[in-house]
């Protein structure tokens, strides 16, 4: 039996009802009796394909123990699915269990893309995941499909709630469809989340999250989970807001499959924090709450998942990484792209081309993928890096191109949002200087008592860095305050040096009075000295921002202080 992708041409997109079928226990059966299993599955797939044709479906390909088909009508697809199950059950009647297969069917509405003789698209992936939630001899359809067909077909449906499907970014609400009414379930229960599985894995996770978010430590819990997963401490609630605890925990569990893997990871982060007594408790709390969830196996059926991974992705991840690397190498600005990748991996900015050459680009791509298994993660990390570069606009454009290329590696997921460049960066973009990464402010704008800094976790990341550039341009994450020549140039180029000095002097010693005494004092100190005093005077970037802005307003319009202040603030940001 040969099902090739022939009905669609390369690159064509099609919105359709997608159906994926799968035989339950196929792998196990294969290991027992290969010949018989193959004969049985061939029989079943022939039957499925035949019924599919009758309902106007088109077979796209075979997955070995199932078929991927599409229908131009959702109603046809669901009616067909039910008919398939009915006929399959019928044909299996009276046979010994090992001589017949049960099948699962998933249906979802989505785009199909044909690429390199393979069918891809987010819709296909969601369908394949939904299929694993179907009961044997049952169907699992997405809410989208259900809403279209519920008025036209008589269904025995159970709402499964929003399902968090593996590698799918957004939860997909879905329904379980059965041939006969469930003995215990009502006739048609829509809306009410009556879980078919009592306390499913998802429910356990849901409960854990409910517990973790309702405690007063919830913000700290999120910060710690976030830091453990992203290897970067984030105090900004706006950034944290973009990540839901649910997907963070799911991704974290993918990396640390058991609790004993997770615990040391949490501990490692806690050790690097300045308030590690508080966070030790937080870590313990997280572990306690996650225990029941970790107690259950993550996948509905491991076998089913293994199957669809090997089947659905014809190109292996390695191959795709190589493909992405090749595409990147053809890019005009490959060097800068590579600098970005390098910075993502090693948390340090490298301008030295020789150092960059020593690292294999494909390895970099793979490392980045490890660091950012989802496009959302990549979006976050790139945003984190680009906003600290002195050419944010140029690098934001490159970061977006990078994300577009990486989409090939994130095929199962929807494309992430684009990064937006800061508006006020034109002047800085043209600075002749090297691109330099500026660190995040150590202290955020939160109340002084409420922050936590991360040292060692970042340190362990940077310890992997290769030798720094010999020219001493300090391509490190934080620009070195030992030498302020570059900072001075950044300021001088856009601001009158005397006005800069007047502003800084006023900030330190009160508004400048233009008296002889004031001038004499100003002549005794250099811009360098003033900048150093300002660093001491303003321990955090937020401090600097507010103090200089207030001073500028005090000095009034005539002194042109407001633009002077904003230039200085922007330039000094790199040193916090």
């Amino acid at each position, binding site marked *: 039996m040969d099902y090739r992708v022939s009905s669609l041409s390369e690159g064509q997109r099609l919105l359709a009802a997608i159906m994926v079928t799968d035989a339950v226990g196929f792998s196990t059966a294969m290991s027992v009796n290969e010949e018989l299993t193959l004969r049985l599955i061939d029989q079943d797939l022939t039957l499925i394909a035949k019924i599919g044709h009758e309902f106007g479906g088109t077979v796209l390909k075979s997955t070995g123990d199932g078929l991927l088909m599409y229908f131009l009508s959702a109603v046809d697809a669901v009616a067909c699915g039910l008919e398939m199950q009915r006929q399959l059950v019928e044909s299996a009647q009276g046979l010994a269990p090992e001589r017949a297969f049960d099948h699962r069917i998933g249906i979802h509405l989505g785009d199909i893309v044909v690429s390199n003789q393979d069918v891809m698209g987010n819709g296909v992936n969601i369908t394949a995941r939904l299929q694993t939630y179907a009961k044997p001899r049952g169907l699992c359809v997405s809410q989208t499909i259900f809403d279209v067909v519920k008025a036209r077909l008589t269904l025995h449906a159970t709402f499964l709630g929003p399902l968090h499907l593996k590698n799918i970014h957004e939860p997909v609400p879905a329904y379980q469809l059965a041939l006969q009414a469930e003995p215990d379930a009502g006739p048609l229960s829509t809306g009410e989340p009556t879980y078919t599985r009592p306390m499913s894995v998802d429910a356990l996770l849901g409960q854990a999250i409910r517990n973790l978010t309702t405690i007063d430590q919830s913000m700290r819990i999120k910060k710690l989970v976030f830091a453990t997963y992203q290897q970067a401490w984030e105090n900004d609630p706006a950034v944290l807001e973009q990540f839901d605890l649910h997907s963070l925990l799911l991704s974290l569990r993918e990396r640390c499959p058991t609790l004993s893997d997770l615990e040391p990871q949490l501990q490692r982060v806690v050790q690097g924090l300045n308030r590690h007594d508080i966070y030790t408790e937080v870590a313990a709390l997280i572990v306690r709450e996650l225990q029941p969830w970790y107690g259950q196996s993550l996948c509905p059926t491991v076998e089913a998942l293994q199957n669809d991974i090997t089947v659905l992705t014809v190109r292996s991840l390695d191959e795709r990484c190589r493909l992405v690397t090749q595409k990147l190498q053809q890019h005009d600005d490959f060097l800068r792209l590579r600098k970005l990748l390098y910075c993502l991996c090693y948390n340090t900015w490298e301008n030295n081309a020789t150092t960059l050459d020593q690292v294999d680009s494909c390895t970099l791509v793979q490392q980045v993928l490890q660091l950012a298994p989802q496009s959302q993660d990549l979006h976050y990390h790139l945003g984190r890096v680009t906003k600290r570069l002195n050419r944010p606009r140029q690098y934001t454009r490159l970061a977006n191109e990078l994300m577009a290329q990486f989409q090939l590696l994130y095929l199962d997921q929807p494309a992430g949002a684009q990064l937006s460049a800061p508006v006020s960066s034109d002047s800085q973009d043209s600075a002749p200087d090297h691109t330099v990464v500026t660190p995040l402010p150590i202290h955020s704008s939160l109340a002084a008592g409420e922050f936590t800094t991360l040292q060692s976790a970042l340190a362990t990341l940077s310890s992997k860095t290769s030798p720094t550039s*010999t*020219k*001493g341009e300090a391509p490190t994450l934080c620009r070195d305050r030992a*030498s302020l*020549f570059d900072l*001075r*140039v950044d300021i*001088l*180029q856009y601001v*009158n*040096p*005397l*006005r*800069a*000095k*007047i502003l800084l002097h006023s900030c330190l010693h009160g508004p400048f009075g233009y008296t002889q005494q004031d*001038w004499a004092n*100003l*002549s005794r100190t*250099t*811009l*360098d000295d003033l900048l150093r005093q300002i660093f001491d005077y303003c321990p955090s970037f937020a401090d600097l921002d507010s103090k200089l802005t207030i001073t500028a307003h005090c000095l009034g319009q005539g002194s042109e202080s407001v633009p002077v202040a904003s230039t200085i603030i922007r330039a000094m940001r790199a040193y916090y």
Partner: protein
Amino acid sequence: MKASDLLQAYTRGETNFRGRVLVGVDLAGADLIGADLTQVDLENANLTLAYLTRARLRQANLTRIRLGGANLNQADLSAAMLHDADLHGATLQGADLRSAKLTLADLLDANLIGADLRNADLGGANLTGACLRGANLRQENRKYSTNLRGAKLRQADLRGTNLSGADLAYVDLRQADLSEALLKDANLKGANLEGAQLSYANLAGVDLSNSNLNQANLTHCRLVRSDLSQVQLNDCRARGADFTDARLNQAQINRCDLLESRFSRADLSRASFCGSILVKAMLVEAYLGRANLTGADLTEAVLERAEISSTILVDTTLTRAILPDGSVHR
């Protein structure tokens, strides 16, 4: 001419004020962008924070003028008389200052990025904290050279500046940034370069005798043929620095990192290298008569044909070093 007359004329659209006498006028904060002030007399005038972008001030008398914070970008100040002028925090980016007389002028924290200072006289001027990146100060012909004798250049930014042949004798260049600067054949006799950045700078043939280079960064600095006699070079970072054919007699080079540095054919008589790292250094044919290498590390250094017969070698590490006779030290 009074200040008010000048400003009125300028507002009317007049720009030609050549040769006018404006001694002692108060034009603080005035806007005279692009005005032609060639050969004007502005002695003792106050032009603090004035806007003089692209103004023409060629051969003007600006003695003791107050130009603090003035904007003089791309202004023509060639052959102007700026003796004792106050240019504190002024912006002179890309200004033409060729042959200008700036003796004793105050250029504290001034922006001189890309300014043309060829043949300018900056003797005794205060350039503390000034930024001279990309400025041109090189010697125009054999007869004249940019004079910076006794100038104050502490914390000045001279990164990549061309100072070839400039006279920098006895200047204060403490903590100045001279990395990648071109100082070929310059005179730095008795200069104070303590803590200065000189990485990748070219100081070939420079007279640095009696100068102070303590704690300076000389990484990959080129000092070929330069005169470093009696120089203070303690506690320096000088990896890969090139001292080939240099004169270093009686130099104090203690506790320095001189990894892979080159001293071939250099005169190191009576020089002191106590506690310095000379790992993999090249000392072929170097003259080390009565030099003091106490506690120095010369692992894998090359001393082929070097003169070390009178050298003090107490506690000196010579592991795998190639000795004068070509043999390898065990």
